[in-house]
């Protein structure tokens, strides 16, 4: 028996567009996009809860602190 659980999600048009866009761009299913989003959210939450900061770096090595 599978230990997976199902969840029904209702998305507004903007969220639906984002889901479709990412699914197409990454060539993965919409379910895979949702799973990736959850995993990333959990990771970022765990690290920022520990006091770490999320930083993006552009090609000129300019760092931008992402405030969450």
């Amino acid at each position, binding site marked *: 028996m599978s230990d997976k659980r199902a969840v029904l999600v209702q998305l507004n048009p903007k969220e639906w567009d984002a889901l479709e866009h990412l699914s197409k761009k990454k*060539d993965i*299913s919409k379910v*895979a996009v949702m799973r990736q989003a959850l*995993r990333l959210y*959990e990771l970022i939450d765990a690290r920022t809860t520990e006091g770490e900061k999320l930083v993006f770096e552009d090609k000129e090595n300019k760092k931008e602190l992402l405030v969450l």
Partner: protein
Amino acid sequence: MSKTEVKIKHQASGKLVPATLINGVSIRQADLTQRAWDEALMKYLEGIPKEDWPEHTGWDWKRKYKKYGRLSAYHFFGIECNSVMQGLLLLSTLFRTSRIDDGKQIIYGAYLATAPWNLRQLTNNPQYSLVGSVLVAAAIETSRGEGCAGRFGLHSLKQSEQFYRSCGMSDLGVDGDHNDRLRYFEMTTLAAEKFLPE
């Protein structure tokens, strides 16, 4: 946690012996493994010049568990044989883009190591072989389960580069963006199919 029966090679007898591939190593197992590996390392490293030590000598698996083990994005694999962990793999299922198959998604092997008593560079009589290969197979299986068709990438320590080449992974050269400037390797779908036919 899931357990799968696998085979690794007992070097002294040359026979394949049963072992357990664990997906979901616990903090207790990570702690016990770290202690056992540290103890063995202390014994083996005596008399070996520091430049010949395994590059992953300083890795702390209990710390890695605390940082990644509970997160849904990570799979913590271990191969148990004789009630001792023979190898460990920490795999990230956060997708990255393949550097070979344009636009395709891959998963990433963050850390992979075999027990000190299985390393040829430490002992002339390693206890088990094929441990690394079983862990590479676990990465391929996980990639398939995630819809990545066997593709995964990793940055290899210098001492392990030849092993990953022997698995059929493509060597894409030194990654200038990597903190330690390690070489980056990728397993393609085709190479995965050769290594572990579906």
